[in-house]
């Protein structure tokens, strides 16, 4: 398989288009014939990352990279960043507004979900800058 790289822009507060990037990524992986359990993990993790950019950030982008052994998703945004990453990673921790909660978000499960779905997961963030998340899932031998 040839190396593939796609870049998608994600707008803040755009709840109409929210999820489109994850949907496109899922479609791309399907077309490549990747195992459905791997697609599911990537889709869930990417969707959580996408919703976090829409809900919590000033906007950013999601990059899909496929190399022979691995699928890599990089989600980065322009801020405002996370002050305490360790706290944000805790299940149930959320700063989501009531408006966002009414839409079904704010369980504080997004970041832990991303980690659970990944073979390798890394989040770096600093206040005033932005949040940078890497999600990697390994392909099984023969794919």
């Amino acid at each position: 398989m040839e190396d593939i790289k796609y870049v998608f822009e994600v707008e803040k507060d755009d709840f109409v288009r929210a999820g489109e990037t994850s949907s496109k990524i899922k479609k791309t992986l399907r077309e490549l014939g990747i195992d459905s359990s791997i697609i599911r993990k990537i889709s869930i993790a990417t969707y959580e990352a996408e919703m976090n950019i829409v809900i919590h950030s000033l906007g950013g982008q999601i990059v899909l990279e496929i190399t022979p052994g691995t699928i890599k998703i990089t989600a980065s945004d322009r801020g405002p960043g996370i002050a305490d990453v360790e706290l944000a990673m805790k299940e149930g921790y959320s700063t989501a507004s009531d408006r966002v909660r009414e839409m079904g978000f704010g369980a504080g499960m997004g970041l832990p979900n991303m980690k659970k779905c990944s073979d390798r997961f890394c989040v770096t963030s600093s206040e005033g800058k932005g949040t940078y998340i890497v999600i990697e899932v390994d392909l099984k031998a023969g794919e």
Partner: protein
Amino acid sequence: MKICEVKLILNAEVLCGEELLENEVSYAFGSDLMSDVLAFVKGKTLLLTGLTNQQVVRTAEMADLSAIVFVRGKKPGEDIIDLATEKEIALLLTRDTMYTASGKLYGNGLEGVTIDL
């Protein structure tokens, strides 16, 4: 349980996905928190929810869910029905509340998702 049985038990209206009603669901999960759905649902699961926005369909799409039941008669907009049609997700609408709908389905043998903490 087949989705058409869910329809009968809940006296539900099919909003889209008539052709999917013969498909089976093995478990059901009721929630208005999409991240909980994404965290705990696995396999062929039916989602019951009181939310009617687009993100419910997106969540089902990402988690490979084949059917959603909207409870207490809350009908989603046409754009949401269109999205579900495109993604081949059956949408059902029941007048029952979350509690009643869940009880009826459980009583008819549709189990909940097991959660390992």
